[in-house]
């Protein structure tokens, strides 16, 4: 026999469900609409009388999208760029945010601000010099070059976010690990990172999504089909003197697919959660 939960708890639970369901509806409705749009023929999209449920279903938009674009190449490029970006961020950024979180040294605040400053200069004006730079080091029009460009503004995001999560992990645990014979890096990898795991994953997800969806830099700094990414490809499929609703919608659906798959994997890791405790005081 489970003792009845206290009433206020019940109220909060009900409220939580209500909030979540409403939010989920708000979030999902446009996406559902996008999906519906993607399977409607043009005549049911551009019409005077709203067609909610398509009376005629077509996959033409997807077929066009697939045949017209080199979707696999584009997605592959996007995956590579996203993967590289996340990788670079993980390698360099994890260390940096750990340093910011764990050490007090002269100029720390200033340096952190400096990392932010990097993000502050409007991208609009960064493009030309970046273009020049990338051409000089021969990385123009390459996935690695693009990943490095992304890193320039995603790395600060990564570092700043992750620092918050590192801060939340008790310092004593590292002390214990170090006495146990672990080096500082060892303690970082074995103790701090597992504790900050949720935050690390969340941060990586952001960087990945930002890289996955980035358009302007990808357009400007890649030229050949071989290194173009999916958002650029998507935009290009949408001609100017066309009414591309169906295709645009199909493109939207296709473009969130890989992200959803990725997230489904990540989600499992994230919700595993950790039992905090063992820390007095």
């Amino acid at each position, binding site marked *: 026999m489970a003792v009845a939960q206290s009433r206020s708890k019940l109220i909060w639970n009900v409220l939580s469900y209500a909030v979540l369901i409403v939010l989920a509806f708000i979030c999902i409705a446009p996406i559902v609409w996008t999906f519906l749009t993607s399977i409607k023929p043009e005549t049911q999209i*551009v019409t005077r009388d709203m067609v909610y449920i398509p009376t005629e279903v077509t996959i033409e938009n997807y077929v066009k999208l697939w045949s017209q674009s080199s979707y696999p190449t584009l997605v592959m490029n996007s995956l590579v760029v996203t993967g590289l970006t996340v990788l670079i961020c993980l390698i360099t950024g994890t260390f940096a945010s750990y340093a910011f979180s764990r050490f007090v040294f002269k100029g720390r605040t200033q340096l952190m601000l400096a990392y932010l400053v990097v993000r502050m200069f409007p991208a609009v004006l960064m493009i030309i010099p970046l273009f020049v730079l990338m051409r000089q080091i021969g990385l123009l029009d390459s996935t690695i070059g693009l990943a490095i460009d992304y890193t320039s503004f995603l790395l600060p995001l990564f570092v700043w976010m992750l620092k918050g999560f590192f801060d939340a992990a008790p310092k004593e645990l590292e002390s214990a690990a170090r006495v146990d014979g672990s080096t500082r890096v060892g303690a970082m990898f074995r103790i701090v990172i597992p504790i900050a795991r949720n935050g690390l994953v969340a941060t990586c997800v952001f960087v990945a999504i930002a890289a996955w969806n980035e358009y302007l830099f990808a357009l400007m700094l890649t030229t050949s089909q071989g290194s173009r990414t999916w958002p650029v490809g998507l935009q290009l499929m*949408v*001609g100017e003197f066309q*009414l591309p609703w169906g295709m645009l919608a199909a493109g939207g659906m296709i473009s969130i697919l890989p992200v959803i798959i990725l997230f489904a994997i990540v989600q499992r890791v994230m919700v595993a959660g950790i039992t905090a405790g063992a820390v007095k005081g």
Partner: protein
Amino acid sequence: QAASINYWHTFTSQSEFAGLEEVMKLFAAAHPDIKVTQENIPNPEFMAKITSAVVANSRPNVTMVSSERFADLLAMGALTDMTERIASWDRRADFDDKRFDSITKDGKVYGVPGFTFVDWMYYRKDWFDEAGLAPPTTLEELRQAAIKLTDPSKGRFGLGMRGGPGGQNYIINVMAAFGSPVVDATGTIGLNRDKAIEAIDWFSGLLTRDGAVPPSAANDGFRQVIEGFQTGQTAMIWHHTGSYQDVASALKPGVEFATLAMPAGPAARIARLAYAYNTITSDQNADASWEWVKFWGEPDAAVAFLEKTGYFPASSVAAKDERISGNPMYKAAAETLEFGIPQPSFPGYAGWTESVVLPAFQRTLIGQATPEQAVDEMIDGLASATA
């Protein structure tokens, strides 16, 4: 000599792409030693990208340049003088001299026209017939017809006004039609304040006074205007030949809708001819580039392109193609070719129209400014754009 060149363009839609591929295929057959790699760039970002490339000195060999971009690109030094090559080109005679007007500066020619967009208007033939109205030939007739055909209870409006992105060109046209061209016959740049005010007052009045325009006009771009027409919410729209396929896909040509040359204003009849030129933008492999540029002038290529896209050829030879001359709907276009003029073109023009003229006009639409204020804003903006 084996050479490889790259070609930047703004072909993005499926049909455009098919046309391009066709042309490339023909070219490859004719010039097996020249390898063309094409790169498509979305139209809105085209200038940003080409600017970056020019500044970074990493230009493509050949670039597609539309007339309104010519002046800016030339000023940036992006284009190469092609006068001599064109003069000695055996197909030069296929083209009317006018076709080169908007790619010529100080007697130097910088490109070869690929195809043409011709300004015209679409109207609901069935509604006009029903109301017993004749197709308008002047702007005032257009206004009267628009007022008559407006019936908000049925959700019908007379004119689909493009007051959003891209609408600046029509504002310029209306001002010119009222006697205030941006560049006058003598080549002087400037607006005639009174005429311009009159024009803006008339144009915005279609919404604010006559209510003959959908209230969404201030945010209506190409898409909204076409959709409004397709879904039977507007009786008339202004556009160019490039949208014919779209309109015809939703409405029956000759029955539900028909085309018409642009009506005349009090001072002039204005319709624009816009060309997409191919220009050499890099010194490297210039000869190979030239082969590619002039290939677009080959009737075979132009017709192949037309077949895929329906875009109006620039070459007079190609324009005689039966599929164009045989289609009554294209009559208006042929008519317009006679009196149509290119858009004004000087450095800063495009930017001024987009970032000054359009917002100023929008402000009259939404009641934030009077026509006088809007025109003053335009005049000031023009002054600083050309300062």
